[in-house]
């Protein structure tokens, strides 16, 4: 695992705690809602999908990016529903378990979706949004 991947892991692992710390700031401040929004929308999903031993294959980069938000919001929605069902909701009760979950899974291997481990769909080099040198493929 290279330095960049470790850095991404580290950022994802602490993102929940940063979001939680941001809730100490005055209500409605962008410095408060922006980290919370980013973490709730992306944190748990990226933590689950991104850490792969050899980095994400090209086809899986798009997949990890696309699935991170829906998975994160699913977990956040289920967590919030559970807390209200047991009449135990508070910001701390909501964010701390999600942050702890993200930290824990960020240091575990990523979810074994086939594309992540063997590049199931995308050909090498085709799945990235990054710019590439023009090949013979025209507009593809």
């Amino acid at each position: 695992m290279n330095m960049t991947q470790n850095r991404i892991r580290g950022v994802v692992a602490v993102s929940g705690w940063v979001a939680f710390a941001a809730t100490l700031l005055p209500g409605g401040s962008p410095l408060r809602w922006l980290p919370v929004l980013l973490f709730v929308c992306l944190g748990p999903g990226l933590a689950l999908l991104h850490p792969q031993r050899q980095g994400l294959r090209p086809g899986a980069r798009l997949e990890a990016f696309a699935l991170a938000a829906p998975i994160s919001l699913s977990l956040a929605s289920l967590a919030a529903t559970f807390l209200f069902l047991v009449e135990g909701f508070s910001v701390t009760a909501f964010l701390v378990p999600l942050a702890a979950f993200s930290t824990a899974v960020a240091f575990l291997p990523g979810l074994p979706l086939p594309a992540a481990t063997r590049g199931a769909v995308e050909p090498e080099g085709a799945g990235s949004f990054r710019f590439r040198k023009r090949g013979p493929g025209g507009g593809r």
Partner: protein
Amino acid sequence: MQQHHQGPAPAREVGVPAQPAASGRETRSGGGTPAPPARRTTVPDPAWLSPALLVLGLGLWVLALPAIDFRTMDDYGLLDRLPAAFYAALLVLTAGFLMALRRAGTSPGWPLAYCVALLVALKAPPAVLYDSVRYPWASKHDAVVDTILGVGELRPSAALSGNMSAYDQWPGFFTLNAALVRAFGVEGATDYLNWAPIVLGLIALPVLVLIYRTFAEDWRLVWTAVWIFQLANWVGQDYLAPQGLAYILHLTVLAVVLRHFVRPGSAGRLRDRAYLDPAATAVPPPTDLRQRAICVVIISPVIFAINAVHQLTPIMLCAALFVLALTRRYRNYGLLVVAGLLMLTWNLTMGRPLFLETLGTLRDSIGRLTENSRAGYAGQLTGPGPELAGRAGIAMALFVVVLAGIAVFGRRRLTRSALPLLLVSIAPVPLFAVNDYGGEMLFRVYLFGLPGAAFFAAAALVPATAGAHRSRGGRALRRTAAIALPFSLVVLTAGFLPAYYGKEAMYYTPPAETQLVTRAIDQLPEGGLLLATAGSFPQALHRYDEVEHWFFAEQELPENEKMLADPARYLAEGIPPGAKARVVLTRTQDIYTAGEGLLPPGGFAVLRDRLKASPLFRTVEEHPYGIVLVYTPASTETSATSGGAS
């Protein structure tokens, strides 16, 4: 953004980019050889054009915003309030997107940037400009969040007025927003409510790309499909509502299924480039039982969340998984069973009251195709703006379907490889036979069919031209596409604006009117009754857990015409004895009931005047934007004794 093109850019054909015979992948698989360059109509295509047009388009849009006079909207909603710069911005973005498409294979970042810009340009104006909630009914969702935060628990079995308990039975979206409201430290969801279409659109965009990329290797096709999806998504289901989130989760499950649930031994020929459409992606490699089982575990929380968020989407998901299970490629009964069991479990526990009630009404609604597929409650759209919006919506839907049909029948190889996408798009159609979903089924079926429709519509406009430049027919096809693509995108943009903004006068409510409603409801005692023509006005459901509601004009027009003959008597007969009742009639209700055809022309004014004149009701507050009347049954008795109530 940075491009790797350092030298002079090659000249290209207008509209649709060149598509040499063999892509990199094709060459790798030995499916063809690089073709000699063809003679082309050329236009300059410098690398700086994409960023320049993007900046110009967004610049025009920013300049246009302050000139949008939304407070004086009239018959045509926002349409005739949008300045020329706004329309110019959309045209520039479309032109820039078409230029960016030509480099889509090497620089997919630019089409992505344009798609994001289109999303913002189309849907952000209300979020930036409005000083109140867009869509009056969206404030109902704020009320639900507010109530959940207030009581701190969910009450799925509480028999609340107007079936409001349903929101506690499928609470996932509201509990999530309640958590966000507290974590953001804002007063309520109204603080960010108008931004929901942008946030949901940004989350949906990569999921759509993922789905389209599963079936198309040609990035031009992928981005054109995303562009068409955004333009054809005029149905307004992406506001701060459960269905907006549930829809994205639904697409997510489908994306995982389509990519990771291919059964071994299936789709053999669909991995052979010689057999595939040149733009198509080979079917994903098969996965074994263990891999699929792991994938089921991974997507189960998403399926579970869909069930927690929305009542209709799990049915759409099960329908989609069912049609996929009919194909050899995706015959995954286990996944279908898991999705079905999760839905059933939720419906029989949290959602039990409404689920059983709906089952009870199915006997009446089942098979009534025309009624189940009608839009809205009962009336016909009335007035220039709403009528134009209705016509534009239908024309847009037909246009996309016709384009999709051309590709489905004209590009059989692509249809074969992308058949699962076609099937999941058609899957919700039979639901017309089951239930009208409060007049919403038409919009929901359209929305769930849109991903596939947009993909095949794009396939009609971005033809595979591998080797085509060698033949006369191929050249003609390329020339046609060079015109058809920009033409169609402009037509779709022209259709989106009336479809999305033509009824905007119904959707914007000045803050003073909202405050009037809030005051009126706050003055009702617990157990009091609020009367209004329809529920489409801001704060209509404020204190919904303490106050009863009667939206008395949400019925067929003939019934309302009878009601208008003597509205005071009609309402008095419906108000339970002893109830403390208030009637709130606002400008937004006037526009809504006229536009949706619930009341005849001038009917709202008649209603207001007759109630004001009746001794059964006393006016307590009156403004140009609304009136509040209190029900005074005591005066009826007094008047009757002294010679007659009207």
